[in-house]
């Protein structure tokens, strides 16, 4: 637990000094403007909820994966990764703490898009089910951290995985139903989107903002947490592979 906090504090200091990492937060308000403009132009105030949540979820996903994916590479560039490996500390909590901070900070995107909606467009947003909203948000942060941790190690293990970093954005915004619910996607995509935790989070968050009583909320929050736990387990395993390789070969890049 102390390692988790150490990692978190370190990451927080790092973020304050690297404005480049906050790009996602710079474009979030503009993206909110884009989506709300479409909704307003088409006279569909009922979809404002979608338009406000989408940029926030995009910021959460984009920023977490970007920074987490660079984490070990950045340590290697400064030559500190070898030093970390040499310490007796367990590194998984350390990196998880760092990823958690990034995820929490990226939630600022939600604040931004909320502000744009109320200040620029005068769209009033009311949280109909605050309890569900808070629980879903918490579960989403945890699940996001679990998944981002996967990227931390995956990119180090395989150069070719890194090349596909680009495709981690929009394909998942579609599959995760961040703006358009997955129910509207072609049927063949639905099985895939079921295992993307974002699709459960996005639906739950939208439901919690709408007055209608949400359908089986406990089960759905459970899905978010379950998928998150699977991601966390995978990230733990991948990091242990990275560390074993580092100790055995003195280098962690697989090449290829």
């Amino acid at each position, binding site marked *: 637990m102390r390692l988790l906090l150490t990692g978190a504090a370190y990451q927080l200091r790092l973020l304050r000094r690297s404005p*480049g990492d906050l790009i996602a937060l*710079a474009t979030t308000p503009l993206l909110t403007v884009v989506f709300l403009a479409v909704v307003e132009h088409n006279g569909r105030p009922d*979809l404002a909820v*979608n338009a406000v949540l989408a940029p926030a979820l995009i910021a959460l996903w984009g920023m977490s994966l970007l920074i987490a994916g660079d984490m070990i590479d950045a340590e290697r560039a400064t030559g500190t990764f070898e030093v970390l490996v040499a310490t007796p500390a367990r590194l998984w909590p350390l990196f998880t703490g760092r990823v958690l901070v990034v995820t929490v900070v990226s939630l600022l995107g939600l604040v931004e898009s909320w502000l744009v909606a109320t200040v620029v467009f005068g769209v009033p947003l009311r949280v109909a089910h605050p309890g569900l909203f808070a629980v879903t948000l918490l579960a989403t942060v945890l699940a996001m951290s679990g998944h981002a941790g996967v990227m931390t190690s995956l990119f180090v293990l395989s150069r070719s995985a890194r090349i596909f970093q680009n*495709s981690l954005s*929009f394909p998942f915004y*579609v599959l995760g139903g961040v*703006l*358009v619910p997955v129910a509207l996607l072609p049927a063949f995509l639905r099985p895939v989107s079921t295992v993307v935790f974002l699709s459960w989070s996005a639906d739950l968050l939208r439901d919690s903002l709408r007055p209608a009583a949400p359908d089986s909320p406990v089960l759905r929050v459970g899905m978010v947490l379950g998928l998150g736990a699977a991601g966390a387990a995978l990230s733990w395993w991948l990091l242990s592979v990275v560390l074993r390789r580092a100790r055995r070969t003195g280098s962690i890049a697989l090449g290829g």
Partner: protein
Amino acid sequence: MVSTWWRVGRASAANAFADLVVIYTPASWVFGWLVRVLAQVAFYALIGTLLESPAQQRFLLVGGAVTVMVTEVLLVCASTAWERQAGTLPLLVVAPVSMVPVFLGRSVQWIPSALATSSIALFALGPVFGVGWTVGTALLAWAVLVLTCLATYLFGFAVSMLVLGFIELRNLVGAVVTAITTAISGAVVPVDFWPAGVRFVAHLLPATYGLDALHRLSREEITFTILSNAGLLVLVGVGWLGIGASLLAALVGLGRRRGTLEFP
């Protein structure tokens, strides 16, 4: 002068393509970049599905295709910053020819890539979302797309000259300018949606003219406006080239006075 510019630009383009082959392999371009780009266009077109409006679906698909083209062309901000990071700026200043063709050549790698992805989006993904093309409208649309791409590249050149002074902001500036273009140039809502001030800014962006023409062509509306839009694209592009060249001259002048043209 034209032949010197051409030769310098071509030499600089060698650099651009050397960067491109490091960034992508053919496989990663197709399965990484192209997939991402098509997903982005589909993401926008699907908003039309959400709105239950086939017309909006078509409008947003065309908008999405131009948006991804702008996104990629504005990577010129990043690749211009790489030139400064290479430490070659003082050496370029010392060389007896203008630096404008150097920078114009330096980022051309994005043009073929952006044209390829946006063409596939318009002509292959388009029909999936109900955008029908005839041979005539498709050819005209492609010509407009090429013009829009080139004019946007010149606009990107001017923006990247600002970035040259603040290279740590290279990715931020590219992303913000792209997002603004998406919002106001008629990619997601007609330009008329916005108040006068915003409309004025929109008309400084090449994408606005290209989008107007492409939306018309996607509705099989072949009018004189398309030709006038093409003319305006050329005009706006040349205007931005002039602004970019002046910014570069100002940057070098300022650097010579203040001593900010660093030796490596």
